[in-house]
């Protein structure tokens, strides 16, 4: 598959995400925030970083960039979209996902190997995990506290749309230990931890994140 990775001004993890896409068995296609063009990709990754310097709110400016108009339209047609960290923030600001990410409750930047449980394996990004799989994936954020009103949280839980949940510790004050969610259709996934950093033994902390990138192939074959 051709998987686009968007680079915004201030993106940090776009090259790591491209590498993870290739290790997952796909062709990585660089997409530029200023282009109204998805270059014929089959899926899109919005990488981590500090797009537009996190000015105004994290993801608030990026959400109105030319490429996001195309991403939003494609996502609404069912294209798989994965937003990691800042990408998750952009997806919430775009209203492709409910809720918002606010500053960590303990006010410090957090950087750790985080244990997670993968709770929804029906998305194109998680289908290669076993249901309930417990994995360790790099987490690094300053504004990773997931919040939504109680009705929205109940609906996410009731519809099985919590994709990943923090285990052992809640690193950022996220409501109900939520680390990642999906939309109603299940094609858009937002995740605060960084699976693209956990894909090779060489660069540390295991390869548990690779499943997010190999899942796409499994989703297509099934």
């Amino acid at each position, binding site marked *: 598959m051709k998987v686009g990775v968007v680079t915004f001004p201030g993106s940090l993890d776009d090259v790591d995400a491209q590498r993870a896409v290739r290790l997952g068995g796909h062709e990585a296609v660089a997409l530029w925030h200023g282009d109204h063009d998805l270059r014929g990709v089959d899926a899109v990754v919005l990488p981590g970083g500090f797009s537009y310097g996190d000015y*105004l709110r994290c993801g*608030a400016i990026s959400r109105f960039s030319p490429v996001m108009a195309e991403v939003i339209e494609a996502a609404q047609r069912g294209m798989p979209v994965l937003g990691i960290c800042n990408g998750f923030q952009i997806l919430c600001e775009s209203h492709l996902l409910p809720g918002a990410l*606010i500053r960590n409750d303990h006010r410090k930047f957090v950087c750790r190997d985080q244990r997670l449980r993968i709770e929804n394996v029906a998305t194109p990004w998680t289908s290669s995990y076993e249901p309930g799989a417990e994995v360790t994936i790099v987490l690094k954020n300053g504004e990773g506290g997931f919040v939504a009103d109680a009705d929205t949280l109940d609906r996410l839980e009731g519809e099985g749309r919590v994709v990943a949940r923090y285990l052992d510790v809640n690193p950022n*004050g996220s409501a109900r230990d939520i680390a990642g969610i999906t939309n109603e259709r299940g094609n858009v996934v937002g995740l605060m931890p960084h699976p693209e950093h956990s894909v090779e033994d060489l660069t540390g902390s295991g390869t548990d994140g690779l499943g997010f990138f190999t899942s796409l192939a499994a989703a297509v074959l099934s």
Partner: protein
Amino acid sequence: MPRVVVDVMPKPEILDPQGKAVLGALPRLGFSGVTDVRQGKRFELEFDGELTDEVLAEVRQMAETLLSNPVIEDFTVSVETVAAVEAVE
């Protein structure tokens, strides 16, 4: 020149870690008596010409779509005349 001010505040039920940090710093500086601090944002929008209802409606639209995130923030729109501001200053 008319100025429209948009004040954006975190919703009461949303945790405000920045406000908490300021609240924690005040007693260390010898200021006492403050029981809570909430930190928001203030936007000053300058306009040429008259502030019609259409313009104010548009400002509310700006506030809803870009200046605030309605999921976590509330906003208010108010009008200031620059002459009044200068008098105060």
